[in-house]
């Protein structure tokens, strides 16, 4: 199954989803990008360079870790974890970013812009820009700037300019709008590094392509380590890039079930979540450059979303998943904030792993299902990132009293220094 083998006149479409819905002014830029991307994709040397870069700079291949303790504790399937958390900058986001960096070089552009929500994509982009010598501007909702200061701190120290976006809900979707506004102005010398497998074609395909390195490694590693393919593969789904990254390698393996785990937030019926496919609240729409399921009202204006994991808190889902959901190829579940906190604790204590809150959504679903599976069955979870960068969020999520005391003390120290 090659999902990217588009039929005539349907380039960029996955079933009825995808496409390019952008201002006319970007038409030439998107064309140029598409041509360049097609060249890169057709050029084996490009992929070799990409893999070499990821090896020497980001530590790929990331390993697959067998979680014997957790498997034993749950008493069902054997659980394996693909360790994207071990990447440089701490998440899978860097795969896409470094790939687009190489492509940007080929485009001959010297400036990059990006949107970021949780900040991991912005952090990765700022890192890439420092490494490639690009000018870098990161758009981030003002609410996210306030709550994700550590990532902002690093982005700025890496030399990026972080712009706090004051519009709308002041979160990820608004940052995307603002990045697009920059792009329609500065496309001549600027490449827009979109952070997930969303947005107009060719971004969903391109981001998925760079992220496919996850799955191709993982599939081989599972064969080497277990002698066979996993029965189920779990990944969290924000925009869908890490999930596409790991799932793609298994598209032709009909016995491998693929499960995407979305942000259930406060649960079904709460309208405080970001589950576009697992719950029934989303409908098809066109926004931010593409057609997919969005959490929107009946007139097409976007709803507020919520998740403890800022990186999953997005109104739309990648068009490929919208299609694969229709086709029943990928199953979608949701993990609530409460379940996420529990699974995080369990994973830390039994295995010494600290998955990012985003990644923990995949763990939740896997942990629910593993006990119902046979001991000879095998599960693979994509740990898309590490949680230690999210200490403020996790400390808040776990309501850690000592942490709060520490922060209060720190604040007192700063105030004293000022006097």
């Amino acid at each position, binding site marked *: 199954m090659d999902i990217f083998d588009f039929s005539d006149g349907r380039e960029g479409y996955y079933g009825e989803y995808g496409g390019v819905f952008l201002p*006319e*002014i970007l038409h030439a830029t998107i064309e140029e990008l598409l041509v360049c991307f097609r060249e890169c994709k057709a050029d084996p040397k490009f992929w070799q360079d990409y893999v070499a870069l990821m090896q020497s700079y980001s530590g790929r291949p990331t390993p697959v870790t067998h979680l014997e303790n957790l498997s034993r504790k749950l008493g069902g399937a054997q659980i394996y974890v693909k360790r994207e958390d071990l990447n440089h900058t701490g998440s899978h986001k860097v795969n896409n970013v470094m790939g687009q960096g190489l492509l940007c070089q080929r485009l001959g552009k010297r400036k990059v812009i990006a949107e970021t929500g949780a900040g991991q994509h912005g952090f990765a982009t700022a890192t890439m820009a420092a490494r490639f010598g690009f000018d870098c501007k990161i758009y981030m909702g003002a609410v996210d700037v306030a709550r994700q200061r550590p990532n902002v701190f690093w982005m700025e120290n890496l030399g990026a300019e972080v712009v706090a976006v004051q519009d*709308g809900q002041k979160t990820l979707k608004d940052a995307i709008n603002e990045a697009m*506004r920059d792009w329609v*102005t500065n496309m001549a010398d600027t490449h827009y590094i979109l952070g997930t497998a969303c947005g107009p074609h060719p971004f969903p395909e391109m981001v998925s392509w760079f992220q496919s390195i996850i799955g191709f490694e993982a599939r081989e590693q599972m064969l080497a380590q277990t002698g066979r393919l996993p029965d189920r593969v779990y990944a969290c789904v924000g925009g869908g890039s890490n999930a596409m990254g790991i799932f793609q390698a298994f598209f032709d393996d009909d016995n491998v079930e693929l499960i995407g785990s979305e942000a259930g937030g406060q649960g079904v019926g709460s309208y405080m979540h970001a589950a576009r496919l697992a719950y029934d609240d989303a409908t098809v729409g066109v926004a931010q450059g593409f057609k997919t399921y969005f959490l*929107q009202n009946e*007139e*097409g204006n*976007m709803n507020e979303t919520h998740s403890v994991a800022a990186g999953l808190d997005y109104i739309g889902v990648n068009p490929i998943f919208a299609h694969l959901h229709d086709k029943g190829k990928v199953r979608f579940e949701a993990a609530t904030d409460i379940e996420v906190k529990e699974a995080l604790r369990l994973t830390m204590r039994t295995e010494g792993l600290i998955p990012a809150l985003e990644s923990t959504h995949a763990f939740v679903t896997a942990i629910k299902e593993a006990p119902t599976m046979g001991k000879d069955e095998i599960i693979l979870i994509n740990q898309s990132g590490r949680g230690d960068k999210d200490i403020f969020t996790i400390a808040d999520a776990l309501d850690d009293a000592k942490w709060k005391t520490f922060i209060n003390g720190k604040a007192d120290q700063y105030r004293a220094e000022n006097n």
Partner: protein
Amino acid sequence: MALQSFLAERKKDKDLLVMAHVVCGYPSFEANMQELEIMAEAGVDLVELQFPFSEPSADGPLFVNANEQSLKAGTTVEDCFEFMRQASERFPFQLLMMGYYNTVFKMGEETFVKRLKAAGGVGYILPDLPVEESANLHRLSEEAGIEPIILMTPTSSDKRLAQLGAVSRGLVYVVARKGVTGSKTNMGDDVLALIERCRQHTDAQIGVGFGISGKEDMDFLRGSADMAIVGTAALKTWEESGADGLRKFFAELMA
């Protein structure tokens, strides 16, 4: 009267038509009506009524804020159509729907065309709907005698302009510069050259927009474009100095 013939009619008396813009429901429909009165007084020929959207990614800060405030105040699509209906009955200028494609998509293209027609609109501008995605909507529009306004831009290749020109009818919106609505455009030879290039690919009237803010821009465009499109400058004037300011603004603009 359909847009094409209406514009042709208007062009008889004037060398440069004017299209103005309001964001429906911002600051309120009452204010909108007052703005339209002023525009009508000044002799504006065409007005785009922007239906607010939550993700106005092709707009600049002023319009972004206007979209947001309007939605916060509870503006619905029905409100916008009803306002259009009232305005179309009351004023001599014609009305276009301006907005993002999702508004259309969610109600269905057929419904959209019917409702627009029923409200007295003669066309629409959907900046995020490329021609590749427009075939069905264009067909429905043609059947209903409504015009899609095609945008031509400084980044469009000749090949692209030909493609855009082929489906253009009534009015083409020439985007004077890169970027979103709102900031000033330095009108210069490149704008004239762009208009020239566009003309080679369309027989429709040519309106030029993005950053038109005063009389000098009008003077500059006269003899080259058919219509000047004024957006942000008018809203800014309204926000800063209200009805009187806006009256003065249009008086000066169209003097």
